[in-house]
Structures are given as C-alpha cells and as structure tokens.
C-alpha cells in the first residue's frame, strides 16, 4: 500500500475517509465480498446500492473492523483496519440494519447509556444528549420506551445515538428500510446537514431515489462493485441506449421485444417500458419501433435519458457466459 500511494498523496486536495484495496471475504465456500476496491472522500455521502445478499453489509462491517477480511486492506480515517479498529471506534458511528438499541430503556436512558459507552465525560454527555434530542425531535419522546415507538421515531433515535459522540464518519446499513416516505425525506435532510458539517457518510440502500441523492455511488452485485461513480455520471456513461415505449398494449409490446437481438433488458414502469439496447446500435429507437410496427402494436417510441434504475439493471446484467457485466463507467 505504501508503495502504491507515496507520501505526496496525503498532501493532495482529495482527503480520503476510506481506502479499500482488493477487499475480500469468504464465509466457508461462499464468496460474500469479491475484491472490492474503492475510495470514499471526506464529507461526502457515499451510497452502496445493491440487492439483498450483494455484500453491502459485509463490506460495511469490514470497514468498521467488525469482520476480518479474508484478504485485502482497508484504511479508515487514517487507521489500518482491523488492526487499529479500536482507535477507529471512537471516530465512527454505526447504525445497524435492525434497530439495535434497547427496547426496554427509554429514549433518554438509551442515549445516556450510549454516551457512557463512548466515554463522553459528564459535561459533554449532557450537552450532546440535549443537542441530539433537539436535532432529531426527540425531546417530547424522552421518557418513552424505545420498544413502544414507531419505525420513524426509532430510526431518529438510532441516528441520534450514532451521532452522539460527533463521529467523523457514519456507517448506515439500510437505515430507511422500516420507515414511511415522510420520515425518509426528513432522514435525508438530516444526513445532508451532517455532511455539510464535515461528516463522511456511507449509506447502503436498495432504493433508487435514495441512491440518486448520494454524492457518489457504488453498485454492488454478488459481492463485486459493478459500477462506481457520481449518479449523474453513471447515468451519462451508461454503455447501453435507453428507449422508452408507451403503449396501451404494454404487455404485448413487452412480449414482442423479449428476446430480440441487441435488446438487453426490459423494465416496465406503469404504462411505460424501458428498453435497454446495445450501444453499438445506430438507431435504437428505430429498431424498437420497427419491431413493434411489425407486430401491429400502436406505440410511442423515443430514445430517452437513462435513469438510475437503468444503470442498475445494466450493471447487474449477466453476459451469456454467466459473468456479471463489468460497467464501463
């Protein structure tokens, strides 16, 4: 690692919170994470997008030193992980996928306990508990048992507890999987506020709209990073053309286009169909239009800009030989 990044790198403008190199983890014979290499800049919101079982949680756990990598290296906030994981622990906050504070303690008791666990001294502890209760609107819930709160309230409590010790970096493992849309919006407002104050945030999700809000994004599939970049850039650089089809007989259109050469994938969005066509195709919209006309389907066909879902579909497409496609992004 030293040889690869000479000392001058530290003085460059880009300040990295996480540097991972060839990170791999096996559980028995199962390859959960397969040579993940990525850099996360400080004060950025970095997203992990991927289906369940794509290795998001395992990667996050290796980043914070909870799991030993089978091979590869991680540097987190200037510490070698997991060797210096203890030093890293005081600088990070971690929000588990499942609510993991104590159901039988009140909001205040949970926060006070976490403040003690992070060895905040008395004065600071009092100030910080007051501050997070204010910031996450927990003041009026102070005496409520955590077990008796709604998904959104619990999630606010979990984020409050994770930020109690003013960590430099936050790891959030699918934080919004159990909350309503309004709570999700509020939650993201909080994340932006934290990032603007300099906190680096790594958030895993399987929601496209959340992924789109991240400064930068890695799409994971079967333990590998299949695409990485800013969401805008990923959409611009998509190695496929996107054709949008609007038709009343959307099911038939779908059947007609299925299996047509150079059509890589079809995704239905209500009465619209997103057709992914090989980039080499000169007139992708024409190809789709001809196909539908031949079948006598009345449809509006036009080339369109890729959205993040198209990027996701393209990145996780399988080649005929069974290999997941490596994105050109």
């Amino acid at each position, binding site marked *: 690692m030293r040889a690869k990044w000479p000392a001058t790198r530290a003085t460059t403008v880009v300040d990295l919170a996480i540097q991972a190199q060839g990170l791999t983890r096996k559980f028995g014979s199962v390859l959960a994470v397969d040579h993940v290499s990525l850099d996360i800049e400080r004060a950025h919101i970095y997203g992990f997008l991927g289906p369940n079982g794509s290795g998001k949680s395992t990667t996050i*756990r290796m980043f914070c030193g*909870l799991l*030993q990598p089978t091979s590869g290296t991680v540097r987190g906030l200037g510490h070698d992980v997991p060797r210096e994981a203890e030093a890293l622990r005081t600088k990070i906050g*971690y929000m*588990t996928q*499942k609510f*993991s504070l104590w*159901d039988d303690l009140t909001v205040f008791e949970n926060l006070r306990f976490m403040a003690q666990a992070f*060895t905040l001294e008395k004065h600071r502890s009092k100030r910080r508990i007051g501050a997070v209760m204010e910031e996450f609107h927990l003041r009026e819930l102070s005496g409520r048992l955590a077990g008796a709160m709604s998904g959104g309230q619990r999630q606010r409590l979990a984020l409050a507890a994770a930020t109690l010790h003013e960590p430099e970096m936050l790891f959030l493992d699918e934080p919004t999987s159990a909350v309503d849309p309004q709570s999700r919006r509020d939650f993201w407002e909080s994340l932006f506020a934290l990032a603007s104050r300099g906190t680096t945030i790594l958030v895993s999700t399987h929601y496209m709209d959340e992924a789109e809000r991240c400064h930068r994004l890695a799409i994971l599939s079967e333990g590998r990073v299949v695409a990485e970049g800013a969401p805008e850039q990923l959409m611009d650089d998509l190695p496929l053309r996107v054709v949008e089809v609007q038709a009343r007989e959307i099911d038939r259109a779908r059947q007609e286009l299925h299996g047509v050469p150079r059509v890589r994938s079809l995704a239905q969005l209500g009465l619209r169909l997103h057709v992914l066509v090989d980039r080499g195709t000169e007139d992708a919209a024409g190809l789709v239009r001809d196909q539908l006309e031949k079948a006598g389907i009345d449809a509006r066909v036009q080339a369109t800009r890729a959205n993040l879902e198209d990027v996701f579909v393209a990145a996780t497409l399988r080649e005929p030989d069974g290999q997941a496609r490596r994105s050109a992004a």
Partner: protein
Amino acid sequence: MASSRSWRASTAVQIVPALIGVILFMTMVVFTAISLVRERERGNLELLITTPVRSFELMVGKLAPYVLVGLIQTTLILVMGTLLFDVPINGHIWQLYVGASLFIGATLAMGLVISTFAQTQFQAMQLGFFTMLPSILLSGFLFPFDGMPRPAQWIAQALPLTHFNTVVRGVLLRGAELGDLTPALLKLTAFLVVAVTIAASRFRKRLG
C-alpha cells in the same frame, strides 16, 4: 409420629442446604446464557461492539448484576432454611459466602461459554439443561456420593456443584473449619479460573 417428624426434619436439613447450589446453578448458567444470546438475537451486541467498550468491560458488566442476584438468592435460601426448616448454621457463615462467590463466578462463566456457542435462546436453554442435569444428579444432591459407581464419582469430581455442596454441608451441618474446606474451595477456584479463561478467549468483540 415423632419418628416421621424427625425423618422429615433430617431430610429437610440434608436437602435445603444443597438447594442453594442447585438453584444458583440453574439460574446462573441459564440466565446468563439466555440474556447474552437474546442481546445477540436483538442486535444489541452488534451495536455494542462498534463502541469503544472493551470485551472485558462488556463481560464484567454482563455478569456483575448476576453476582449480586446470586448472593441475594443464597441469603434468601439460608433465611428460609433456618426459619422454616430448622437448618442449623454450625460453622462460619462467611466461609459459605466465599464458596458461593467462587461458585457463582464459575457458573456465570459457564453460562458465558454456552452463550458463545448458542445461536438462539432455545439452543442456549438446551445447552443449559444439558450441563444442569448431570450436575443435579451426580453432585450428591440426590444420591449419596459414596454410593455412586466409580465412573460417576469421577464425573462428579469434574462438576463445580459437587464441591460447592461439600462447602455448604461442611459449613452448615458439620461446622467444618477452614482447613477442612480448603480442598473444595481450591477446586472451585480452579473451575473459576478455567471457565473464565475459556469464556474470555471465546467472547471476543468480533462477529466472525
């Protein structure tokens, strides 16, 4: 009538002191194992290991309340035993508490070891019972130790409850001197050291 009464009294005097060990064993092993596994099931442990809390602190924090619970249980049984069943206290009571503290430590550590093997509360409970039954059957609680076959006696020697019962009966019934109890207390100490070492080596702040 009189003989039946004295029979009952002598049975109570034999059984009630031994109950201290049995009840401590049941509660200490099963409760610690289950309470730790429950924390793992609920995800509390995953959160705790991301904090700067050390494994050692976590272990002590989990066990300390049970030490107190165990000593209260001991006291309760002693009080009930003397008031209701005329159990005598012939020796020095502090010696019994020394033995109880060692025994509680050893059984808590056993519970901790079980918690590192069990994945679910149900498994923890099964493993708890698995260690509990031989202890109750072979420790001299149900059958006199000297009447048991040799192999059973060897197994009994490897159970902390056997030695704790020696201490309890020694202090309460025989009024034994400290010198008499030393071998049993040393064996209990050895159990404590071994169990804590195994527990500490298995109870690490990692998920895998």
